[in-house]
């Protein structure tokens, strides 16, 4: 089939090339920073007041180098890294030694995915529906009021907005907990009590993400709809007396949502690197915090592990959009 040969295969090659390139860059960058994980551990040991004999020190350095997989030249490390990666092993965390990176990610991932998938979906759907209607009825007063609200909310720096919510609803009126993903000591089970506890803890972070994310989606959708609304085919449908529900649904929204689909795929791809500021403000145990600590501590393996997911998620999301776009827009054809 011409499509497979002329589009799909080159596109897949490009896909893997991007992933390979991304991983290689992430492999190199931490090694170029002055952050030496081994000297860091030694420093910590010293800081605790333990004195080491010079011989013992060399021994520790050698052992750590071996354990961390930092033996030999960068090229040797690189080969060893790919070997491990194909076995699905991301190595040990330097910082939380001897925990394995796989394990750490497996613990943090559900928190991040649970929070961000939900908020991304909610803010995309709600933002688009309200933005679409506000764009179509842009002369109505409720549309102007919504627009004014979005205009105020959207430029707020996220950390200030998140912190204000926290202060107001967790400190001034104590409706929500001040930190954490679940109550201390709560055992993860599939009971209503535990689920309720998690939802209660995630409410404020989710609210902050939904409001700001929703405001952005609202504004872009409103603008796109206003533009589409002025298009000749919409005007012509009105001139032809097509009923308003059809014009809104099949003419305006249907065309305006096309660029928004691309935007959704990109933001889903970005989920996998976590939401750092949300997690810091709300003490939420997700991937963003984990990545932040990994970078600060020069934890090569953990950085690699998290960014690996992120790279794969973003490239895959774009691939899926590219491949499914003709379903949404008949003008796109692959030759």
């Amino acid at each position, binding site marked *: 089939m011409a499509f497979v040969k002329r589009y799909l295969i080159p596109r897949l090659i490009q896909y893997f090339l991007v992933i390979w390139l991304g991983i290689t860059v992430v492999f190199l960058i931490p090694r170029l920073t002055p952050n030496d994980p081994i000297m860091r551990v030694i420093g910590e040991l010293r800081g605790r007041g333990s004195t080491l004999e010079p011989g013992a020190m060399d021994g520790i350095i050698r052992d750590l180098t071996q354990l961390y997989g930092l033996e030999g030249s960068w090229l040797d490390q690189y080969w060893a890294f790919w070997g491990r990666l194909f076995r699905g092993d991301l190595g040990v965390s330097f910082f939380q030694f001897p925990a394995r990176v796989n394990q750490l990610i497996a613990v943090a991932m559900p928190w991040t995915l649970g929070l961000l998938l939900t908020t991304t979906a909610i803010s995309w759907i709600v933002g688009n529906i309200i933005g679409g209607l506000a764009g179509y009825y842009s002369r109505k007063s409720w549309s102007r009021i919504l627009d004014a609200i979005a205009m105020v909310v959207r430029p707020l720096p996220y950390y200030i907005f998140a912190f204000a919510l926290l202060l107001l609803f967790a400190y001034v009126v104590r409706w929500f907990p001040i930190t954490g993903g679940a109550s201390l000591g709560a055992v993860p089970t599939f009971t209503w009590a535990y689920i309720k506890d998690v939802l209660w803890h995630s409410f404020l972070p989710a609210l902050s993400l939904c409001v700001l994310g929703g405001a952005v989606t609202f504004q872009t959708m409103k603008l796109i709809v206003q533009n589409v609304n002025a298009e000749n085919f919409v*005007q*012509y449908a009105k*001139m032809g*007396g097509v009923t308003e529900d*059809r014009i809104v649904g*099949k003419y305006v929204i*249907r065309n305006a949502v096309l660029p928004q689909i691309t935007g959704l795929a990109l933001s889903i791809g970005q989920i996998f690197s976590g939401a750092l500021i949300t997690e810091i403000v709300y003490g939420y145990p997700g991937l963003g915090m984990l990545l932040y600590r990994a970078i600060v501590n020069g934890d090569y393996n953990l950085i690699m592990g998290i960014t690996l997911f992120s790279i794969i998620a973003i490239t895959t999301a774009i691939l899926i959009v590219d491949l499914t776009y003709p379903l*949404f827009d*008949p*003008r796109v054809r692959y030759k």
Partner: protein
Amino acid sequence: MEIQTETILRTENLKAFYVLDMHGTQKIVKAVNEVDLAIKENEIYGIAGESGCGKTTLLKALFNVIEPPLRLIGGKIYYRVNWEEVEVTSLSPEEKRRLRLEYISYIPQGSMSVLNPVLKIKESYQDFIASHVPEQSRKETMELAQKQIVELGLPKNILNAYPHQLSGGMRQRVTIALSALLSPRIMIGDEPTTALDVVVQRGVIQMLKEIQRKLQNTIILVTHDMGVHANVAHRIGIMYAGKIVEEGTTIQIFDNPLHPYTQFLINSLPKFGDKMMRESVPGSPPSLADLPRGCPFHPRCPYTKDICRESMPGFSYPDEKHRVACWLIGEGEHGKAS
């Protein structure tokens, strides 16, 4: 060519202005200013004039889509629906919507992409049909559409195509077919031949004529192309600065143009065997937001008299069906000025 004299669309002293609010100062664009028209059944009425003289705005008003910033300042628009005259500007939005396509339909400019790019032509047709035809007869109407498309010389499988797969001329003809689908009594064309090459133009004009002959309805055709008017129109109204300045049968307008502006328009047309230099109207049309006093044409008119600078002439009737608003022809009937 026998023309019935029954009036189907009539305006009385129609005034439609754009009211623009520009940083606190109001700007009024007098796009349609005191227009009286009486368009008859079974005729093709042409409206001619330069760009920016209010032709398209007049069409919008005739089509009864007056949306801000365009405002109906005064006057009335009547359609004769089922032998009864209806004042249409006061109808409810739903009544206005029902009239469109069923009673009066709109043919857009050729260069415009007026079909939804993500829908097949068939789906667009279905939307238009479903908005006007009761559920039980929709299928029938769709079959009718198919038949009509073949009759009008378009390929049958065109309905299964997307708009971007058709050529510009093809798209324009599909749009015209769609406008004619529900046998409207009036069809309004806004530069339907503009931006098409001459061969396609000819096809489009023939198609319009054919539809008109079949439906025996009224076509109001706006174009600045006097050649097209000479070809299709039965009567022509010449528009200048938001006013009709001369109106007559096509023969009267072309053989005996009385208004200096009309004379310029006619003389700028090429003729076979005539090697004289073509002269165009000197200067450019006035801004509709800042019209000159008196006759709006006087700054460009080679025969300006003192009175032209003072007041606008009324209509004189030099011949049956022929009226002209110019001080050179006569004082006209005041108060009934266009």
